[in-house]
């Protein structure tokens, strides 16, 4: 039994997806100078992007609804949503129209041939194009759905340095053509909704992955008018867009989680004087074996003197093991020998988490990543997410495998302060293999109760024969 359970956990590690953390989109792998670091842009200079030379949107009759200059201005404005975060150093710069071999002289990427040429420039690392599909025809040529608002992709990475070299953003202007006619598969969004969708894609362009916070909104089936406190804490990088626009609710376009993570990935000099860190490990019930793939959320404690619920509004998350690979590989089946090229192979990082937070008092909790967040909606390094017994737990200072998971202690964090070893021990998780398992060895039962063991301290082994 123990062997089977161990095989499950091991196989999830072996076969899990690529790294795609709740903070960074992906992290460096074995080929990097520093494995386990987020892929980020070199922000010593602005990120130079080129833009399609055509209109952003045209009507079905061919009338320009949003011109090229309006489109360029909109793109600049949306990049500005990220650039204007005061604690990040990321900046973007418009570098003119897309130009190069195979691109029309007016820079208008309209056909699949043009798109192929633009991709060539992006794959070569020479340009990071922003492409307007003014009437959705390019999406259809690519066999993609007219329901796609936009997408982003990384074209070239410097695997050794851990840098994003080039990336692209694709905008479906049909959503802004003023026509909402589902019978012709022509859909429409408000300008705010469209802007939020593209800002999300620009977050990926910038190196951010998905974040899961206020999941209850999603689980409870809200599709429209979400409560404002929970919407305020819902990251723009949440995997699915389903509430009313943040702007229409009087909220800034970025949630605290978005602001924290763009600042963490690309910190400005002011980051250290504004943010502290909560970090630690998530363990199975044995207190030594790391758990990868659990969502860890730091929530500000509600201030009863304000009408808002800060515990819903101010929250930052990351997935445990976000720096570790989701796919270490295996040599048994012959088709996954090397595993993923992303993520560290240092086992000390399997259950590690680290959350940047502004000064304040926080509770910290763990939860499963929602099982429906797979593939394009994935959160964290494991895809699909692992479902872990005992995943729902608050941290408190007497963590053990037998505690009350609802018991919580608050942590006060100052700017520049690093609170480490805020460790979780999950309750009721099944027994595990140990690293020396050979069929003749078993672990001694853990002392009861046990508290916060040093993760490097191995349990004594007992030979059975």
């Amino acid at each position: 039994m123990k062997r089977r359970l161990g095989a499950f956990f091991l196989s999830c590690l072996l076969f899990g997806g690529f790294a795609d953390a709740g903070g960074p989109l992906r992290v460096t792998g074995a080929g990097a100078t520093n494995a386990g670091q987020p892929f980020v842009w070199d922000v010593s200079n602005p990120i130079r992007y080129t833009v399609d030379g055509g209109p952003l949107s045209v009507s079905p009759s061919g009338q320009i609804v949003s011109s090229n200059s309006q489109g360029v201005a909109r793109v600049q404005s949306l990049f500005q949503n990220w650039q204007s975060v005061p604690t990040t150093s990321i900046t973007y710069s418009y570098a003119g129209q897309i130009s190069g071999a195979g691109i029309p002289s007016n820079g208008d990427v309209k056909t699949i041939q043009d798109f192929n040429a633009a991709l060539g420039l992006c794959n070569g690392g020479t340009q990071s194009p922003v492409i307007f599909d003014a009437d959705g025809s390019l999406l259809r040529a690519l066999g993609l759905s007219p329901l796609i608002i936009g997408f982003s992709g990384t074209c070239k990475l410097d695997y050794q340095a851990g840098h994003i070299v080039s990336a692209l953003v694709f905008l479906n202007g049909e959503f802004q053509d003023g026509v909402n006619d589902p019978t012709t598969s022509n859909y429409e969004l408000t300008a705010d909704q469209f802007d939020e969708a593209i800002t999300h894609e620009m977050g990926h362009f910038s190196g951010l992955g998905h974040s899961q916070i206020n999941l209850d909104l999603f689980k409870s089936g809200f599709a429209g008018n979400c409560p404002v406190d929970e919407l305020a804490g819902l990251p723009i990088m949440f995997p699915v867009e389903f509430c009313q626009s943040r702007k229409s609710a009087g909220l800034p376009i970025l949630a605290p989680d978005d602001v924290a993570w763009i600042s963490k990935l690309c910190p400005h000099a002011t980051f250290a004087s504004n943010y502290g860190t909560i970090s630690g490990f998530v363990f199975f019930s044995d207190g030594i074996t790391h758990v990868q793939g659990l969502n860890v959320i730091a929530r500000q404690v509600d201030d009863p003197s304000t009408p808002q619920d800060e515990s819903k509004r101010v929250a930052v998350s990351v997935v445990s093991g976000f720096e570790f690979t989701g796919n270490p590989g295996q040599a048994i089946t012959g088709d996954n020998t090397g595993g993923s090229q992303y993520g560290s192979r240092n086992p000390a990082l399997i259950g590690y988490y680290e959350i940047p937070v502004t000064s304040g008092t926080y509770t910290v909790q763990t939860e499963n990543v929602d099982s429906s967040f797979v593939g394009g909606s994935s959160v964290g390094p494991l895809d699909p997410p692992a479902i872990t017994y005992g995943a729902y737990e608050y941290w408190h200072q007497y963590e053990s495998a037998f505690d009350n998971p609802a018991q919580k202690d608050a942590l006060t964090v100052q700017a520049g302060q690093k609170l480490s070893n805020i460790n979780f021990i999950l309750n009721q998780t099944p027994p595990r293999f140990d690293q020396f398992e050979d069929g003749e060895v078993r672990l001694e039962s853990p002392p009861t109760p046990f508290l916060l063991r040093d993760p490097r301290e191995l349990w004594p082994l007992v030979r059975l024969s």
Partner: protein
Amino acid sequence: MRLPIPSLGRGPSIESNKELLDFNPKFPSARAVIPFFALLLLLCPAAYSQSGANTAPADLDTLVHGAQTILRGQVTSAKVEPHPQFSNLQTVVVTLAVNRVLKGEPASTITFRQYLWDARELPVLGGYKAAGELLLFLNPVSPYGLTSPVALEQGRFRILRDAKGNRYALNGRGNLGLFSHVENKASSRGLIFSKPVKEMLAKPNGQVPLDVFEEAIHELIGAAK
């Protein structure tokens, strides 16, 4: 060049996926745990759609309306290769052994080519490798031989099983909003659903029984004609 995709032909009969047991928050018996973990072993390598895209919410009526082909089948192969005409476009070529075709031409196998826009998808072959049984709503095939699920993860449903062998469908949004306004839209076309379908349509999200789900699809296809 127009590619012959999707290519339809005779393929091997297939077996259904391994059993999936419902998650039980109380630690279950060893007897129950073994098949549960065995199936999770199978599911661990799977991923189901591309990253980095934002799609508008699509209800079931929209999925049915937008799909040229709706089928359920088992992924038998998936490989990444450049598009034969446009070498900078990476694509995944997916073959399924078909269990049921709900819309489109009957076939026992189907092969289609999907564009991948992020090179990091390559290690997992666009999410289809070992994906098991899927119910797919596929867009019309473009003149360049490309297609994909309608609204990406929303038009791709995993088929799950519980301990009793009951089968369920769940898309990449947890079926959130899948049934919003569907009954109103259908009734405006004179369609009246059975009681089980009505009960399913009342769900805001979460997995739904496969047989009832396919009945609703069948009805919506008929009503759209």
